[in-house]
């Protein structure tokens, strides 16, 4: 049987990779991809915590992950719409080129 | 007394300020009339309080009103008003300064003179009344929170009043400096006040900002020793205590006339009064522990202020530094912590308030007409405005502590009080009397009796009837108190009695 720790480490690793993507990618869409990886890491956490908990029947973990799905969908749709909107005005989606507002 | 007279006194200026703000901008004279009416009513009411004050009640507060404002457990904040012998004269003082301040700000449409406030009198009077209301509030509050509340209200209109209507050259700098100084002082006290509040809770289980209850909070000696200085000095900044007096002359100089009057006449009293009421009365042991320091500061202020005033060539700076010196005397009186000195301090607050208001009023009149305040550029004013000259001379006599005027009545017990504690300070501080006499007399001569400079010939006119009324009012108080100290001193003594009780109980 696989211990919980393996899943948690997998999630942590995925989270770290996602974070890396968020922090270093210049392209906004790539940053969003990183965020998706992080969200998946969270979901792995949630589901595995559910699976390894003493109270399987409450289903909290699974419900949580379902909600995360919904939120992720909403977030991505709005986010991509914003990316497109920016692209339409500025012809770029490179995050550091969007610097009109820099101090 | 069922009529809530203290509340009316305090809130009337606020209400009037609102009313004035709502008046049409072009009705300048109507605005001024409303302002004057308000000031007169407040003066009469404060005079009523003064006259109805019962002298045989030696310890209590009178005209007490108490409305629960916020009485849930963690905070007991009440609109708790009352006056004692210390504050009643100051309420009257505020009424006087408010009245005279409005009078001399009336404005004159003669383009040569530009006296008073021509530009946006509406806002000016509204802010001035906000200030006045705050000042009244501090003097009558018996609740520490409300005291603080009104204290801050009294501070910030100063910024606008100075910055908008002040002397073009320095107003920005002075207004900001003043506001920051005062704000720093007040927040420093605030920390102390909050600490006192919670310590009271730890000691007695009573959560209340009520100062009467806080008197019994049983602060330990160590606590008092630690927190007395921040609380006292924080407030004393507004009292212009050396070495935190720096803002004061700059502020005086930059402020328009009526604001200078308020500033020096009342606002500095506010600092001294709050320092006394909160610092000394609630932390008596701390006061005893640190009185030497306060006395040192005050002693330096007295002599140093006088000396610096001596070397000024700007009339307003001269008066500004003389205020430092005189407020030093107030602090000196407070620092004695004995009945005589405190009585003197109480009277000095009133006396200096009236006197310095008079000085600034007359200086303003001169400046409005001659467009200069530099003493070497002035002269011959006695011929042009003899009334102002007499007023200034009387003010000067009060300033140098000439017997027969209120200044003497105030300074004498202060020095006596100091004698009782530390005679050397009295000896050193008394030097200021001679210095004061010197610069007052020299400058009176230069400004009023030296020959009129040619460039002023023909431009400068006499002061208005309103100005004369203001001068007369102010002079009257100084002379009456000087001749008959019993009109005020017994009242102050009742307040002092209370302080002595707290000091003795410590």
């Amino acid at each position, binding site marked *: 049987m696989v211990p919980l720790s393996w899943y948690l480490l997998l999630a942590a690793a995925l989270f770290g990779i996602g974070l890396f993507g968020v922090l270093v990618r210049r392209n906004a869409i790539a940053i969003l991809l990183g*965020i998706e990886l992080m969200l998946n890491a969270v979901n792995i956490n949630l589901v595995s915590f559910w699976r390894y908990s003493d109270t399987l029947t409450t289903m*909290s973990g699974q*419900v949580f992950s379902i909600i*995360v799905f919904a939120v992720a969908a909403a977030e991505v749709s709005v986010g991509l719409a914003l*990316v497109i909107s920016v692209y*339409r*005005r500025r012809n770029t989606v490179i995050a550091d080129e*969007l610097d009109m507002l820099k101090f | 007394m069922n009529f809530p007279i203290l509340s009316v006194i305090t809130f009337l200026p606020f209400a009037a300020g609102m009313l004035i703000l709502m008046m049409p901008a072009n009705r300048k004279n109507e605005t001024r009339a409303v302002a004057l009416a308000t000031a007169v009513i407040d003066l009469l009411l404060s005079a009523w309080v003064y006259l109805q004050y019962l002298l045989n009640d030696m310890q209590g507060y009178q005209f007490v009103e108490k409305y629960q404002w916020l009485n849930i457990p963690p905070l007991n904040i009440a609109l708790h008003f009352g006056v004692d012998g210390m504050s009643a004269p100051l309420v009257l003082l505020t009424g006087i300064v408010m009245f005279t301040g409005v009078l001399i700000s009336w404005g004159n449409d003669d383009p040569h003179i530009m006296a008073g406030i021509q530009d946006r009198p509406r806002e000016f009077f509204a802010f001035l009344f906000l200030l006045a209301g705050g000042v009244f509030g501090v003097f009558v509050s018996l609740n520490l929170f409300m005291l603080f509340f009104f204290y801050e209200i009294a501070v910030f209109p100063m*910024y606008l009043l100075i910055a908008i209507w002040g002397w073009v050259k320095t107003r*920005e700098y002075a207004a900001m400096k003043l506001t920051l100084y005062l704000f720093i002082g007040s927040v420093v006290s605030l920390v102390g006040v909050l600490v006192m509040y919670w310590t009271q809770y730890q000691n007695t289980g009573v959560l209340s900002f009520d100062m009467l209850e806080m008197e019994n909070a049983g602060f330990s000696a160590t606590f008092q020793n630690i927190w007395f200085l921040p609380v006292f000095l924080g407030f004393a900044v507004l009292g212009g205590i050396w070495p935190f007096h720096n803002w004061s002359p700059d502020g005086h100089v930059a402020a328009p006339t009526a604001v200078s009057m308020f500033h020096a006449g009342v606002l500095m009293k506010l600092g001294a009064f709050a320092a006394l009421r909160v610092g000394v009365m609630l932390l008596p042991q701390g006061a005893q522990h640190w009185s030497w320091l306060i006395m040192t500061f005050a002693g330096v202020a007295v002599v140093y202020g006088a000396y610096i005033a001596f070397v000024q060539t700007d009339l307003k700076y001269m008066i500004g530094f003389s205020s430092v010196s005189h407020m030093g005397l107030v602090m000196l009186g407070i620092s004695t912590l004995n009945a005589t000195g405190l009585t003197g301090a109480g009277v000095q607050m009133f006396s200096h308030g009236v006197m310095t208001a008079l000085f600034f009023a007359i200086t303003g009149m001169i400046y409005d007409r001659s467009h200069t305040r530099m003493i070497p550029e002035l002269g011959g004013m006695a011929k042009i405005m003899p009334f102002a000259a007499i007023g200034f001379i009387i003010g000067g006599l009060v300033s140098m502590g000439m017997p027969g005027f209120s200044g003497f009545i105030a300074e004498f017990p202060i020095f006596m009080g100091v004698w009782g504690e530390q005679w050397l300070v009295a000896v050193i501080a008394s030097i200021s009397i001679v210095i004061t006499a010197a610069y007052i007399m020299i400058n009176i001569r230069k400004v009023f009796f030296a020959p009129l400079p040619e460039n002023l010939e023909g431009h400068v006119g006499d002061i208005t009837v309103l100005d004369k009324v203001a001068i007369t009012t102010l002079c009257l108080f100084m002379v009456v108190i000087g001749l008959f100290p019993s009109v005020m001193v017994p009242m102050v003594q009742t307040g002092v009695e209370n302080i002595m009780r707290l000091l003795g109980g410590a």
Partner: protein
Amino acid sequence: MFTTTTFASILPEILILTIGLLVLILEPFWKDEQKRSAGWLTAGGLLVAMIVSLLFGRPGEPVAVLGGMIRFDWLGFFLKMLFMFAAAATALLLMDHEQAGKRGEAYVMLLASLIGMNLMASSADLVMLYLSIETASIPLYVLAGFLLGDERSTEAGFKYFLFGAMASTVMLYGFSLLFGFSGTTDLYSIAATLTSGSISPLLAFGVVTLVLVGLGFKVSAVPFHFWAPDVYQGAPTPVAGYLSTASKAAGFAVILRLFFIAFPEFTGMWTMVLAVLSAVSMTVGNLLALPQTNIKRLLAYSSISHAGYAMIGAVAFSQFGAASVVFYLAAYIATNLLAFGLVMAFSRVTGLEEITDYAGLSRRNPLLGLMMLAAFLSLAGMPPFGGFVAKVFVFAAGVQANYTWLVIVGIINSIIGVYYYLNVLKYVYLYRLPNQDEENHPVPLTQPYMIALVILVVGVIVVGTVFAPFFNWSDAGALNLF
């Protein structure tokens, strides 16, 4: 089961949803020039909703409803009323916005995020909490980038979204760990299982850190503040106002409930973390505000520092502390909305946003000048405006909790604050336009602005003078946390 209590507990949200749907349905049928009426509908509807909720939706004893998803208590209710008030004011301010005012979507987004905020204030479950935070945030991303023709606005929306998504994901990771450690998503049960026996303080510290990334972002506390100036500057001004007030306040609601309810075991740890955040926020916010020349950026940095002040109350971890935070939020919502409303009213006419552009305003429109006075003095913490009392309360709470050093930091910062707030007023009152004929360049106010601004300015003064009822409500709310 559905009971009257259940219904009452989500009555405001139901009403808001109804308004939103009404806007969505009616808006296509309106002619172009009528479309700003959506603002009337929103504001009026929210007013009705507030009244109805006050009549029928008042909480009694705190009770968990809907399976413990939300807590029906006074804390949530009072904050909901504040948010609805803020949203109504924002709707009014939006109405005469050139590009956004006639778009029904703006009001729909506003209402959607309002639902999210309302739920943030009462959520008692991690699932619900996360969802409500996102419900509040996602429409705001849209609102921030609402001006499609404006590069700054789209960029603001874009940045807000990127940072927001990132921060909320990190927070979510923290939530998932919290769930894992305690085995439950119910905040009130977490406290029981999450004892120092079950997890080490270090682990708790890790979780708190992760969670604070998201919440710190919401309240724009340093070091999660860097988005705020850009977004406030770029977003439509009323939205910026809404962001800096209601959104921030909702973040504080979560901080209060989450930390007070779920982490009582680790109080010493998280109060210290919050204290540091608070001190840093105040200091950095104020220092960076000093050199600003754009008024919206100035307000942004000031809002960062205000997050720091409000946090002092949370650091105190006492009923009084919590009450002082809530009171602070009430005062701050009115104040800052007023400030942004004024900026909006001014720039709508002049199109200018630099502080120097405000020269002579007090002559161009004396009323506007006075309102600026009220708003900025309240921000500076001067009586008789709300900011003063609020600041005194949080400072008092800090002193009570023996965080005197933090209070002193706060006080030093207040002094810095006074300086730059007064600096703005200096332009309003002291300086004049170069050509000196200010009176010929009036700044007229339209009806919605008049209504909104007057209500706000009255609110600022009422909170600052008749503070007792507001504090009583705040305190009643705070009581629910203990």
